[in-house]
């Protein structure tokens, strides 16, 4: 099915563990984005990518790593998860002015 998917949808992990959130889009959009959504903050941009092998920091990149070896995939890795990274994470892709969002991953760090 075409679109943008995220996996897992729900994840519970412990402090200090490495976690990777996956994002896959079927449109071959050039741009992809990772946001986190927290109460009182709306959505904040973590990282974005303009094309394969091109990534750049957003507003809140600390503690996160991204890669983009293929146009359709944009994984987000928390190298050593902290409780402050408990959030809902949204991936989005874009081409020509509209960002299309995935369904989100709810991550809880205990």
């Amino acid at each position, binding site marked *: 099915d075409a679109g943008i998917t995220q996996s897992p949808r729900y994840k519970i992990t412990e402090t200090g563990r490495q976690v990777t959130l996956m994002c896959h889009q079927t449109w071959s959009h050039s741009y992809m984005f990772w946001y986190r959504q927290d109460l009182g903050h*709306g*959505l904040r941009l973590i990282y974005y990518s303009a094309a394969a092998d091109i990534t750049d920091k957003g507003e809140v990149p600390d503690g996160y790593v991204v890669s983009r070896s293929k146009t359709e995939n944009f994984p987000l890795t928390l190298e050593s998860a902290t409780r402050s990274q408990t959030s809902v994470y*949204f991936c*989005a892709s*874009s081409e020509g002015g509209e960002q*299309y*969002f995935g*369904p*989100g991953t709810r991550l809880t760090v205990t």
Partner: protein
Amino acid sequence: AQSVTQPDIHITVSEGASLELRCNYSYGATPYLFWYVQSPGQGLQLLLKYFSGDTLVQGIKGFEAEFKRSQSSFNLRKPSVHWSDAAEYFCAVGPGGFQKLVFGTGTRLLVSP
């Protein structure tokens, strides 16, 4: 730095009544402007966008928004709200386009019968 303000955290509207959600932005030039809607447990869906031209923009689901440069505002309106419109609404600004959007904190719309 660019910022977006949505002054209303919650709004309750009766079904059939009109709706206006406020959005103000801080930016030197005219940015790209967006309104997104998020239903519970879902991702965000674009309602409408403004890049240039006519300052009254029509969107999906009967929504419209008006860009007012003098007030740095981009308020969202709907003449008659339906129960299915209950959701969270986000205003977003793209200072240099759509690549790096800055979102407001959102307004949660409740629709009463």
